[in-house]
């Protein structure tokens, strides 16, 4: 099953005329400014568009159709109520610059959400404006910079980043004008504290950590690390993309972190949408409060809600979006948070950990190697195929592609980079035991196939709309837009 390009359905003169105003309008463009080339948009009927995109959608795996144990991505159930309620006509039609008098309903939701996020992270202030994790990181590191700058402490040029960190961490450090310096991981998956000590110094602006780390294990010496970094004059940044691991169990604020971003599109279950939108709300400790990105929602004396902007936070790192970030995503997160409630927050990490540890135990019993045997899984864990790669040549990609044929989305592969042939597996708390068991069965079958018929395995997937795709060709013979005289690639 494949679907031709929308442009191939196009015929000159066809249009969905219920969708735009008819008639001649009086417009006067400056001479010479008129459009001369085609717009390059397809000309199709409404039915053709509906059919095309409905069919395209069916070519996707998604949480709503498949178990999707993609590590570090928290593919859990996205309650449909969140979508429905965020899309009430009033919310959809509210202009971002509408006066606060016509915005109290919306602002109340945002204010409440800020309060909830403060509590679950143990931070003192929350700004909702960052539009994804990476922008939250940017906001966080920019606040660290603003903090040092405000104190005239301008010699700090480095941000420390564990080698296992997500790529956005070093990339963010760079965007904030810092040099990212890598700290190695020890054999148990913990930060190498000796190496950290060696790296710390007057040039240290801060460290970006996530705990549990992207290796899926809890950094047990966190208090010590926190002390070391603070003593060196640096601040601690918490990459809270994966708060699912600890929600209601331990709070970044209590671990000594100064700033955190959260991926609401993971922990707070807003949808991933095939690549976004996300939301990377940031929480800060007392000392970073003045630097939060604006706007933030505050309460006026009369208990009505109002925007806090540059007048209220003159030292803010400023604005990071045209308005206040991904408002509609925040509404979804808010609805989710209210449906979870206090006890539900505590349960998230409990059942995420239960599922991860169960799946880890079952896979280990089935003969798979864990990257960090003997450790607890957090909400995720790593299987390494290093041994099998050596013995029969199987790769993480082979297993990933074959899982698709078994009706499972693949785990994250080749991240973190330091574990060879790694599968980072995150089942999330919303999956049933049966789903996990079925996944184990598939993994066992694939391991057996690797032994018995590695060639067949390398040909996977067999049941998807396309067979394995040629990435090298994609990059070398770049074809990134349809041109009518194209032959099919």
């Amino acid at each position, binding site marked *: 099953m494949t679907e031709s390009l929308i442009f191939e359905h196009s015929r000159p003169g066809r249009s969905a005329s219920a969708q735009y105003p008819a008639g001649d309008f009086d417009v006067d463009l400056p001479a010479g400014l008129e459009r001369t080339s085609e717009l390059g948009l397809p000309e199709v009927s409404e039915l053709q568009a509906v059919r095309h995109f409905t069919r395209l959608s069916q070519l996707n795996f998604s949480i709503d159709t498949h178990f999707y144990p993609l590590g570090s991505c928290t593919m859990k159930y996205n309650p449909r109520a969140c979508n429905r309620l965020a899309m009430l006509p009033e919310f959809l039609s509210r202009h971002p610059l509408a006066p606060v008098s016509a915005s109290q309903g919306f602002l109340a939701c945002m204010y409440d959400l800020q309060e909830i996020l403060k509590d679950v992270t143990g931070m003192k202030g929350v700004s909702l404006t960052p539009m994804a994790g990476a922008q939250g990181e940017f906001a966080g590191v920019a606040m660290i910079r603003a903090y040092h700058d405000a104190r005239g402490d301008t010699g700090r040029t480095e941000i420390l980043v564990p080698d296992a960190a997500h790529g956005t961490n070093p990339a963010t450090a760079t965007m904030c004008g810092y040099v990212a310096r890598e700290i190695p991981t020890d054999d148990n998956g913990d930060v190498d504290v000796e190496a950290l000590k060696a790296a710390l110094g007057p040039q240290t602006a801060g460290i970006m950590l996530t705990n549990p780390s992207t290796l899926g294990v809890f950094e047990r010496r966190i208090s010590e690390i926190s002390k070391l970094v603070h003593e060196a004059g640096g601040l601690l940044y918490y990459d809270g993309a994966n708060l699912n691991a600890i929600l209601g169990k331990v709070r970044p604020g209590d671990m000594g972190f100064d700033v955190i971003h959260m991926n609401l599109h993971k922990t707070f279950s807003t949808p991933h949408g095939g690549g976004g939108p996300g939301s990377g709300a940031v929480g800060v400790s007392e000392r970073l409060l003045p630097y939060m990105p604006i706007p933030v929602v505050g309460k006026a004396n009369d208990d009505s809600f109002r925007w806090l902007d540059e007048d209220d936070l003159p030292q803010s790192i400023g604005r990071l979006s045209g*308005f206040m970030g991904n408002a509609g995503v925040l509404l979804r997160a808010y609805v989710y948070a209210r449906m979870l409630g206090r006890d539900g927050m505590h349960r998230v990490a409990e059942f995420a950990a239960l599922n991860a540890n169960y799946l880890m135990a079952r896979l280990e019993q089935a003969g798979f190697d864990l990257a960090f045997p003997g450790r607890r899984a957090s909400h995720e864990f790593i299987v390494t195929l290093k041994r099998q790669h050596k013995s029969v040549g199987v790769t993480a990609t082979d297993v990933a592609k074959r899982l698709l044929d078994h009706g499972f989305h693949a785990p994250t592969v080749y991240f973190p980079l330091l574990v060879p042939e790694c599968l980072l597996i995150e089942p999330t708390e919303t999956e049933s035991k049966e789903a996990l068991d079925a996944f184990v069965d598939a993994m066992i079958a694939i391991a057996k196939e690797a032994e018995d018929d590695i060639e067949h395995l390398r040909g996977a997937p067999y049941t998807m709309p396309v067979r394995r795709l040629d990435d090298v060709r994609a990059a070398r013979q770049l074809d*990134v837009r349809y041109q009518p005289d194209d032959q099919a690639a």
Partner: protein
Amino acid sequence: MPFIPHTDTDVEQMLGAIGASSVEALFDEIPAALRCGRLDRVPERMTEMEITRLMHERADADGRPLNFIGAGAYEHHVPAAVWEIVTRGEFYSAYTPYQAEASQGTLQVIYEFQTMMCGLTGLDVSNASLYDGATALAEALLMAVRANRKSKSHRILMPRSVSPVYRQVVHAICAAQQLKLVELDYDPATGATPEAALAEHAGSDIAAVVIPHPNFFGCFEAVDSMTDWAHANGALAVAVVNPIALALTRAPGEWGEQGVDICCGEGQPLGSPLSSGGPYFGFMTCKQALVRQLPGRIVGRTLDMDGKPGFALTLQAREQHIRRGKATSNICTNQGLLVTAATIHMSILGPVGLQQVARASMANTRKLVAALTELPGIEPVFTGAGFHEAVLRFDQPVRPLVDALGERGVIGGYALEGVYPELTNCLLVCATETKTDADIDTYVQTLAALMRPASAA
């Protein structure tokens, strides 16, 4: 336990398989001193029924007033089909298409999107989106600095007619990488950037010139001469555009002699509802030669093992997950779902639809301006022809009027004096195709009733 499928038996069996005595035991690596207590400020859970009611009440509190603000976010009709398809689980609840073979739907949508954006802007390559228009401009300028081979300068010529918020965002994001924004003032008569403002900088080392189209006041700039001026001065030309305007006006790829190098903008008018400011999406297109500097994801068409065409993310070596500290940007998650909406929206509207929307919006703003300026005490500020936005000066303070209008269900416009101190008593107004003659009349009548005492005074 909302959203948790575990039965007691499940939990018991699972703990057994793990060899743990309790769920609590799974957290035994966390130092006891750090364990958190009850989350006191998180309220008790609500059922879906209860939160549904609460959200309805909050939505009702804001209502659906008659909106005449644009200022970067435009109220356009979005066909019902768009979001009914976008919110299908297969689009809504999928992740970034890392496993290409199980994500051909999303990937093909992005490929089609890229094609449409290249068509609209007249450039060669498009990415798969950035967060929003403001951050897209910031990324475009960082890209321009990286990509400009003629200049190592970090100076950017930035017209003041670019959205003030965009300029703030560019500053917040780019300052740490030493970008310097050099402001160009606008002509108080036309609202556009005068040639003289550029001329002042001739010969100085400049990385890029920003060209807004239309600008924040709704006015058209001299896009051709600005583009040529940039190129003549070794700078890249960076357009920041409203995509709806491109339905009627020359593509940035065709401005001046060589066209702009990079085009970016806010994608919201293409199928994203106003939604309190987001989620929207930023778009960015550029010339082929610059593709390796383009931030964000890109989808390419390739072949599978059987030689059948398919789609995959490509040129990932630009991105943070591969290049880490040296990536073109730290962006990872982008605005995929809005891109899906835009692709469906543009497919349904087609070229004629988009043009008609643009024309109707222009015509409505003309009507609105004509009607409002018939009231005593209201004058247009700029003479130049504009798109679907215009600046009006009042003979009295506008903020109280805006507030009073708001209480009467009319969102009357955006008061400019906060961001342009010189534009006291000035209001930026907008009427898209969604406004009828009766709506315009409602605005005028409501305003007239409010203004009378002040005019009399």
